[in-house]
């Protein structure tokens, strides 16, 4: 960990809606929640392609990417995002998300390398804590 004289860098999270789905109630609530939990939130908005998202993540030097998909297109969108993250060398970034995703697809995506997927009814402390713990773990792994 960084020495105690250095302030811990705030967790930076990029939130985005890939594909055509425009239902942004959930992602905006997540954005406000993460901001109120002390994180820096960049909300890229709607109709983002996986490429736009990964580019923005690199540019903004984020710790985590959160994607929201309610349209049923989650397999294509998460998979493509993961692929681009590998290609562009940012696998250290946590990819997580939420939306309407059947359990069997959650399993498939997690097996492929996606982090937690938070489904309807999830209380905010679940994802806030998850992001804090995961990012801390990744930072430790990057600077052992």
């Amino acid at each position, binding site marked *: 960990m960084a020495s105690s004289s250095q302030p811990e860098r705030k967790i930076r999270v990029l939130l985005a809606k890939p*594909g*055509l*789905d*425009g*239902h*942004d*109630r959930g*992602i*905006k*609530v997540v*954005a*406000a*929640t993460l*901001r109120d939990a002390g994180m820096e*939130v960049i*909300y890229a*908005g*709607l109709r983002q392609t996986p490429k736009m998202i990964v580019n923005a993540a690199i540019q903004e030097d984020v710790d985590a990417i959160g994607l929201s998909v309610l*349209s*049923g*297109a*989650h*397999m*294509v*969108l998460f998979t493509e995002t993961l692929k681009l993250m590998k290609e562009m060398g940012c696998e250290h970034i946590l990819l997580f998300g939420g939306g*309407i995703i*059947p*359990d069997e697809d959650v399993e498939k995506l997690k097996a492929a390398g996606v982090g937690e997927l938070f*489904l*309807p*009814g999830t*209380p*905010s*402390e679940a994802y806030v804590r998850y992001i804090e713990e995961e990012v801390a773990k990744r930072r430790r792994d990057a600077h052992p």
Partner: protein
Amino acid sequence: MADMSRHEGEVSRAQGTAATEEDVWSRYTTSVSRWQQRVKTSPRRPGNETTTNLSGLETDLLGLPDPNDLSEQGLERYLDQLGLPGEYPFTRGVQSNMYRGKLWTMRMFAGFGTPEDTNRRFKYLLEKGQTGLSTAFDMPTLMGYDSDSDWSLGEVGKCGVAISSLEDMERLFDGIPLDRVSTSMTINSPASILLAFYISVAEKQGVPSHKLRGTLQNDILKEYIAQKEYIFPPRESVRLITDLIEYCTEHLPLWNTISISGYHIREAGSTAVQELAFTLADGFAYIEACLERGLDIDAFAPRLSLFFNAHSNFFEEIAKYRAARRIWARRLRERYGAKSPRSWLMKFHTQTAGCSLTAQQPENNIVRTALQALSAVLGGTQSLHTNSMDETLALPTEKAVKIALRTQQIIAHESGVPHTIDPLGGSYFVEALTDRMEEEAEKYFEKIEELGGVIPAIEQGFFQKEIAAAAYRYQLEVEQKRRIVVGVNEYVEEETEPIEILKIPEEVEIKQRERIRALRARRDNAAVRKALDGLRRAARDGTNTMPHFIECSRCYATLQEQMDVLREEFGEYRETYAF
């Protein structure tokens, strides 16, 4: 009428009193008699169903105040604020005998997969007793992309039916005679094109446009505010809507040109007051656009319809619908100068609240939907969709959607509720709440006007910020257990028994992609280019775009081809995000 004689006797007894009271008394008795006359000549539901209750007593058609119980002011207030059903200000209902004349339309929103899949689901629902069609399109269609666009990857047929061309539309309505059904289509930015497809399918069936009955959602303002399926900037979009209203006023007199929607505003997280205010404000903005075009209000207003949410707070929803009718009637008559009662009356469709359903213990959603549906009926809706229990997980299975439809049928035939018009009218609580909702809405109307109107308010992010704040507040209430959601923050179960959900196979996307490519190769591409050029010219010179959409559709120009012309001419709207 047996149930009216009691009132008549009381009124005539009261008539012997002071001169000023007599004016109000006469107004009241005249209104009541007028209503009774209208009831006599109103339609009756076919069939044998009795209107006696389970004690064998005849159910009152309408509860009215005993005039002896009211002061002159009280009676005055009754007439001004409530009136009689089927009469200005329509607070108590837009038809004189409401559901005794005709039940609300049971209109289940449906669509998924290929056009054939949805055609099957349409027929299933009609067979199970629904009385109107309602079409859900997939994201590519909603956003004006063909099934083979890069934007459509993974999205085809997933949240609605994939329609890229007239050919798909023909498959969708195969075996469904368009002169014998009414069809609602939930489509916004490309609404004119889907209507053009529908008109063309009807043509091929030999059904002339003037016989077509249905509704187009076609409400772009709420897209910027809530649903986010906008494409072009606001003023150009409103122009397209005005073109459509102008065209339909002449050629499709039975078609509801727009479904001014609050449903999505509510789903995005707004409060009931915001839903009420923002929806009506949008409606007024469309009216003003049409008046600016020079259209006659009494020609187009009767075909404007609205669409509200039925959320969980039972009485709040009922008060909301009643306040909406009153506000609409007053504005149409007082501010917009409409002369025809058909312009004053507000007709609406209702959908039970999707955002209130839980993924946890999904069978509980059957109960939520039932209560919400009941509030819509008590609120006097003309048309109703009830959600299925599995809709937080996927699109509805046949089993789930049947239960949702049966919910409406049970309310209609077993509850006795439809036998009385506005049964909660006169309740101290409901009337006070109705008044309060109206007052709160008026405060929003003032605020919107201060900002310069709906479009400027959209550009300033006013609605979006209000909604996001309300959504966040609601979530905090749930997290802090100040608002209990059964199964989510109370009565939580650890185990979940998975229920069967609808899956859309990947073959759908493959098939629809192949079809649209084959169509493009097969058709007369010169004719398509010519038609698209016509559309482009109209987009530029301001002539009505509808005939061009119809011409394009006839030539089998695809949805995206037509939308791309407009994207080039109008540009694409860029939102400034705030949370």
